[in-house]
């Protein structure tokens, strides 16, 4: 199947969301295809995180969010949690909890309110720890992990939810370029193996262009462009919406690369 033929997994129709009288995002419509990676990009405060929260049902919203054709507004919380895995930009990491304790919490959507984890829940967790190379760290407390290790633990916690859709808000926050690449490669591998639909916000446009199949550019709470990375990332558009002096170059492989520039003569 090519990108254009993949079925729609997630679609937002005219979604407005946010707290208070003034919604942070307004009239957003977008689609994510099954098994693909969609990156939401845009300047600070554009409403990227709010779009993810709206999909996850974590902020008041209007409009329709369809997941495999089902209106998520009608789904009970627990059903929603079996279909959508969500990790915020700065997840709470209770520092004295062990990695395994933490990852096991991700099985909550599959447990009755007062139930305990069964053997199958435990094997799902062990599988996730293995896939994310966390076995060595299984007994470590969260407070002792490095940034990259912590992000992997968060990914494992979301992974054990076994959801067809992952919403990850800036999964590389605080990581250097090498650790960010390692994490995104792992995420991409998981996506391909499980045919998971991945929606991330990413602030680094070059990185976003390399990993995402499609980009949605958001500014001031609305969608201003959507399409493949090379369609969305144009010099004019970025200058307009980021108020930035940038140049969009293209690599030999055809990937757009966003380079900041300074006006000639300032240095």
């Amino acid at each position, binding site marked *: 199947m090519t990108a254009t033929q993949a079925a729609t997994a997630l679609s937002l129709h005219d979604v407005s969301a946010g707290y208070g009288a003034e919604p942070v995002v307004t009239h957003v419509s977008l689609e994510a295809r099954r098994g693909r990676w969609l990156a939401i990009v845009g300047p600070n405060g554009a409403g990227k995180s709010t779009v993810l929260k709206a999909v996850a049902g974590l902020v008041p919203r209007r409009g329709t969010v369809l997941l495999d054709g089902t209106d998520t507004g009608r789904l009970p919380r627990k059903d929603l949690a079996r279909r959508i895995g969500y990790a915020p930009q700065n997840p709470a990491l209770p520092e004295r909890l*062990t990695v395994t304790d933490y990852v096991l*919490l991700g099985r909550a959507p599959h447990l009755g309110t007062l139930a*305990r984890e069964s*053997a199958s829940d435990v094997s799902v*967790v062990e599988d996730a720890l293995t896939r994310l190379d966390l076995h060595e760290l299984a007994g470590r407390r969260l407070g002792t992990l490095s940034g990259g290790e912590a992000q992997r633990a968060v990914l494992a916690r979301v992974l054990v939810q076994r959801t067809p859709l992952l919403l990850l808000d800036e999964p590389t926050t605080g990581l250097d370029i090498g650790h960010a690449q390692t994490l995104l490669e792992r995420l991409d591998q998981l996506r391909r193996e499980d045919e998971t639909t991945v929606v991330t916000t990413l602030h680094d446009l070059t990185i976003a262009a390399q990993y995402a199949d499609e980009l949605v550019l958001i500014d001031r709470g609305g969608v201003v462009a959507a399409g493949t990375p090379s369609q969305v990332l144009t010099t004019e558009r970025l200058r307009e919406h980021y108020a930035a002096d940038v140049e969009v170059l293209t690599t030999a492989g055809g990937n757009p690369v966003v380079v900041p520039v300074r006006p000639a003569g300032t240095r």
Partner: protein
Amino acid sequence: MLRTRSRRTAAHTTRVPAHTTRLTPLAVAVAVAVLVVAALFGLLIGPGELAGNRVLAEILAQLTGGLSPLSEAEAAVVWQLRAPRVLLAALVGAALAGAGAAFQGVFRNPLADPYLLGAGAGAGMAVTALVVFAPAVTAWSLGPVGPLPLAAFAGALLGVGLSWMLGRSAGGAGTAGLLLAGVAVTAFLTAIQTFVQQLDTDTLQQVYTWTLGGLNITGWTDVWLALPYVAFAGIVLVASARLLDLLTLGDAEATSLGVRPGRIRLAVLSAASLATAAAVSVSGLIGFVGIVVPHLVRLLAGASYRVIVPLSLLGGSAFVIMADIVARTIMPGELPLGVVTAFAGAPFFALVLRTNRERLS
């Protein structure tokens, strides 16, 4: 043979994952052993002439159906004075330590204690008002239950109820509004208590003694009074332990995992407040138990509420039994129990904090 064994080992490791913080039989056994030893000392030790070995013989006689070695008066000391007091200490300790653990979980704040939402201030106000305005009533006998415990119980629930309503209207479903409401309600009710107290300084002693806490009881009435609340709260809190762990992730993440943080908070805080009110009604205000015991458990046994809640219930019981032994034997008359829990608990806590420094960081 070898193959069978290795297969069994494999099956075992998939059932109980390594590196999870769970209640181990060993931890429970240790906690129960400490509790039993504390209770035994509680029965053996006390003011008066009764020798410990004779009490021991009496306990053995009761357990085996043998002949009691004690006189009727001595048996009454053991079974009508010491035994109910030990049991009440256990209930109060379990209630305060369990409630403290629950409050710390719900508010994600290590300094939260059972009195945070105004249970203590409400009870104090109600008791003071009764003593000052209706001293005659305090002598009434309302069936088996005295008026002071009833007033304290009602006052504690009033304090928590006010905090809950104020917190809901001010801060919505989050914890910050509730926390601030608790602070405001506590300050307000304490101000009322102080004002009422100033109207009649003659009763200062009576109110002051109540405030410092104590288990000076005769007979079993107070035990039966507190037992159902503490048992109910204990069951609810142990059953909610996994949900408390989920709350430590914050509301957004807990919600995304399919649970409703607001409902968990309501259930857990209701149960914990009921237990606190029951404890306050039979023992006054006993500080520090709700903070020191859950933290000791956290340091020694792990950070999951599946461990913290049950071990706090057991550890709180043992701690208050031991503190009460000190309270009734260290000097003629009695030392207020709240003084002992703080006096003994604080240095011990500091010591454990020191020895676990690297685990904290």
